[in-house]
């Protein structure tokens, strides 16, 4: 079966995030995504989606998060995350300083920059769109 695009629809509840690892695992299996890249995808999507639920929507606000996967080239894996939450640019955050003052909060944005090949944020008519590209070539440790 040829899947040109895969998508996962989540409610704005942290409990729905339990679907992510299995969905990503299924994509990895079908598309030959290396383990290190699969790890990076899990890491970045967990950060990005949890931020949308916790900060974009906030407590008790009903909404949805759609994650779409496409693969235009054999070793580039693109995920687009869309929501209807208030405007929140996850890339508009400073990098951790090189002196590495350790903060446990705020690590998510740092992980996105470190583990993804490319990031792009856009405002949509109803919310936010974050595109994250992973490269099989650059996900190794």
């Amino acid at each position: 079966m040829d899947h040109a695009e895969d998508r996962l629809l989540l409610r704005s509840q942290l409990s729905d995030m339990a679907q992510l690892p299995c969905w990503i695992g299924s994509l990895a299996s079908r598309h030959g995504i290396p383990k290190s890249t699969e790890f990076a995808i899990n890491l970045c999507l967990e950060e990005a989606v949890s931020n949308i639920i916790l900060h974009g929507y906030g407590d008790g606000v009903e909404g949805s998060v759609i994650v779409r996967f496409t693969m235009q080239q054999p070793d580039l894996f693109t995920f687009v995350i869309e929501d209807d939450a208030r405007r929140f640019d996850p890339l508009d955050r400073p990098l951790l300083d090189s002196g590495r003052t350790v903060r446990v909060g705020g690590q998510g944005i740092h992980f996105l920059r470190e583990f993804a090949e490319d990031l792009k944020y856009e405002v949509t008519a109803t919310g936010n769109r974050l595109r994250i590209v992973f490269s099989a070539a650059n996900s190794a440790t």
Partner: protein
Amino acid sequence: MGITTEELAGGITKVILDGRLDIENSPAVDTRMKAIADGGNSVLVDMQNVSFLGSMGLRALVAPALAIRGRGGKMVLFGPNDLVARVLRVSGIETMIPVHHEMQNALDALQ
């Protein structure tokens, strides 16, 4: 996520984590680690079987480490795989909680 403990010689508590330290499992780990941190001053967290570590999982490690250190104790991490080790490195957590890949070195660090 499996969490088991072992008491080693020298008053060292070994915590063995097995599974994903992700947003789903981290709250349970957090609760258990806090209890362990309350009771021990020398803690070795065996991460050989941790297959994933996200930022929520990091919190579950940092909080007990700070509590233990605040009492003059020590906590170390042992045996993360390369991917988990990269998360620890990139986050800077390894500057706060020592990471060892040889068990004897981890045990020595707790003396």
